[in-house]
């Protein structure tokens, strides 16, 4: 092992780590705001990459129909719960319409745009929009009525959502994998390193997203509302911050981050309907490194996971996943020894 190999492995690890960092951030975001350990985070990655892949063939992706179905389900749930509270038909229909309108609009635009074979960038934006719209709907359908349940119940729901989303992914995209065309065909030879345009885009996107997230939480009212919910849900509700809309916003952001990650890895690997799970789990390991509570911690953890994975597959490729996931044990031990307080109730 010489410096050439080390540098190539480092670059590979950091490129993968950048994607894990995004997913780790999303996991932390969702957990702090809603206390949901969001296992299906990876499914958004696969959905994002595969939706774009299907659009590339000029067909309407199955996710569009799923989006419509989920929007209808969410809207009727909304209407029913409104009706039970207020016994007011107009208000019930109004709130149902509010849930329905955005996903329906995105779906309609996608149905129209899919056969037009727009440039790759336009299709990528559309794919991201479709997957992002899933976020709030998943929250509305699966989690919102259980908002006050224990983290354990929410975790079990997450497992269910994960299986449902993987199964639907298989139904819509089939068992074979897809590889997307690169956004930037650049190839730079820097010494022994082969830097691809795709890797540069991955780094820039990850960095930009992290900065944007930081600005959002520090500077915007909505971001501050989310932070308030994360710190103290009851207190935030007393201050007039709706925990429903905080949850939906957090899920929308998680879905957006997932979709972007999918677009970023799509050109450099073959994505299958079930590829997302392992990627998401690695993001989760990164989030655990940060104790599910710190964004910079999650980022550092993710880069660490990426590098360990890269060196692990060099030395003992058959045990790569074992190495990555065994990492979680000493980290949990260290965290539980270090943290004196109980993380159970936020």
């Amino acid at each position: 092992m010489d410096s050439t190999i080390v540098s190539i492995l480092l670059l590979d690890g950091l490129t993968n780590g950048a994607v894990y960092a995004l997913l780790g951030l999303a996991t932390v975001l969702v957990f702090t705001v809603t206390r949901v350990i969001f296992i299906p985070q990876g499914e958004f990655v696969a959905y994002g990459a595969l939706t774009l892949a299907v659009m590339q063939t000029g067909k309407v992706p199955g996710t569009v129909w799923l989006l419509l179905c989920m929007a209808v389900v969410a809207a009727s749930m909304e209407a029913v719960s409104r009706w039970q509270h207020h016994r007011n038909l107009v208000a019930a229909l109004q709130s149902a319409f509010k849930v329905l309108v955005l996903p329906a609009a995105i779906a309609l635009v996608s149905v129209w745009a899919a056969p037009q074979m727009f440039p790759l960038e336009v299709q990528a934006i559309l794919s991201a929009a479709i997957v992002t719209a899933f976020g709030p709907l998943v929250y509305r359908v699966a989690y919102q009525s259980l908002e006050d349940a224990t983290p354990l119940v929410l975790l079990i729901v997450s497992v269910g959502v994960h299986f449902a989303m993987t199964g639907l992914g298989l139904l819509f995209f089939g068992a074979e994998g897809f590889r997307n065309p690169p956004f930037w065909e650049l190839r730079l030879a820097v010494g022994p390193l082969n830097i691809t345009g795709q890797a540069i885009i991955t780094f820039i996107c990850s960095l930009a997203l992290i900065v944007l997230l930081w600005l959002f939480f520090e500077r915007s009212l909505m971001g501050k509302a989310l932070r308030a919910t994360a710190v103290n849900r009851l207190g935030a509700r007393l201050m007039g911050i709706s925990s429903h809309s905080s949850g939906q916003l957090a899920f929308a952001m998680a879905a957006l981050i997932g979709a972007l990650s999918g677009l970023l890895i799509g050109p450099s690997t073959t994505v299958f309907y079930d590829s997302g799970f392992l990627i998401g789990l690695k993001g989760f390991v990164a989030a655990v490194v940060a104790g599910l509570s710190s964004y910079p911690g999650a980022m550092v953890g993710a880069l660490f996971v990426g590098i360990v994975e890269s060196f692990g597959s060099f030395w003992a490729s058959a045990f790569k996943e074992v190495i990555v996931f065994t990492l979680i044990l000493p980290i949990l031990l260290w965290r539980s020894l270090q943290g004196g307080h109980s993380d159970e109730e936020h």
Partner: protein
Amino acid sequence: MKFATKLIATAAATLVSGMALADITIGVSIPLTGPASGLGIPMKNQIALWPEKIAGEKLKVIVLDDATDPTQGVKNTRRLVTEEKVDVIVGSAATPVGIAMADVAVESQTVQLAATPIGLPPGKDTWTFRLPQSNDVMAHAVVAHMKKQGVKTVGFLGYTDAYGEQWLKAFTAAGEKEGIKIIAAERFARTDTGVTAQALKLTAANPDAMLVVASGSGAAMPEMAIVDRGFKGKIYQTHAAATKDLMRVGGKAVEGTYVVSGPVIAPAQLPDSNPSKKLAMDFAQKYDNAYGAGTHNQFAGHASDVTIVLEKAVPLALKKAKPGTPEFRLALRDALETMGRTVVAHGVLNWSKEDHWGYTMETGVIVKVTNGDWKVE
């Protein structure tokens, strides 16, 4: 409802013909939904093209969907043997399902023709015959081709699952005889996002050729990583990668790859000396006529081979017993074991009491990816 109508129709037909229940019943359980549906659906298409009679006996075929689920596969098989009293079970096309079904085949003493290369412990496969080639046979073809090309050292990049493991064993054994050695062996999983590190280690070992062991569209990513690292030697792929998905995903990067496969992959290009050429071409033509040009694949080929095999074995079994009886099923098994060399579309079979894999070493064909299509070497 459909089932009930069928039952009534069958009952009526039985009354009319006065106990002419000597039809041969074939029970098929294949994945029409789930992850392996891509393998089961072409089989179902081919089954629709099966002849109405085999060896002069009317054929009754029941097709059930096992949803790529071992539990469902076992349920289907039980239903087929107890309710339908089938003479032969065909399926599954998915390995885990096929393995689970083999137990029922032994228990009910019914021949199972599996469309997947299932490995079973000794004694468990007494009623199971495999239609696909074993990895040993395919490894033999790869080694023979490598020897001709002057390859001495090989880098191995394969799945971390049973398929990768079996290939490593088969190839190491076959290579040893010809002096071809694996100098580096690396692993990856189908859903991995990259194999840069493995490719780096393999290219550093600088072998004459690389053997990639992966399936379907999963086979392209590892090969592209090897090419990306500037590997200039020959790259070989196994028969699980012998689908057009390799080119669809891999594009230009997989150009020039050698892929081992059964003869059905490109029958028209086979040399006339290949014993399977006529049968393979016949199958491919009929399938393409029915479902569109270039749509035939190896799994439809297995379904086609079922009838070829039965055509030869059933007359032998009929001499001993009537269909629908346990004696007939036993006679059919004996016939399959003793009928000797049988040419099918997928190669040349020679099943015996000890060997239920049966393909002879002449079966494997090496094709090269040329301009996004297969070219027989």
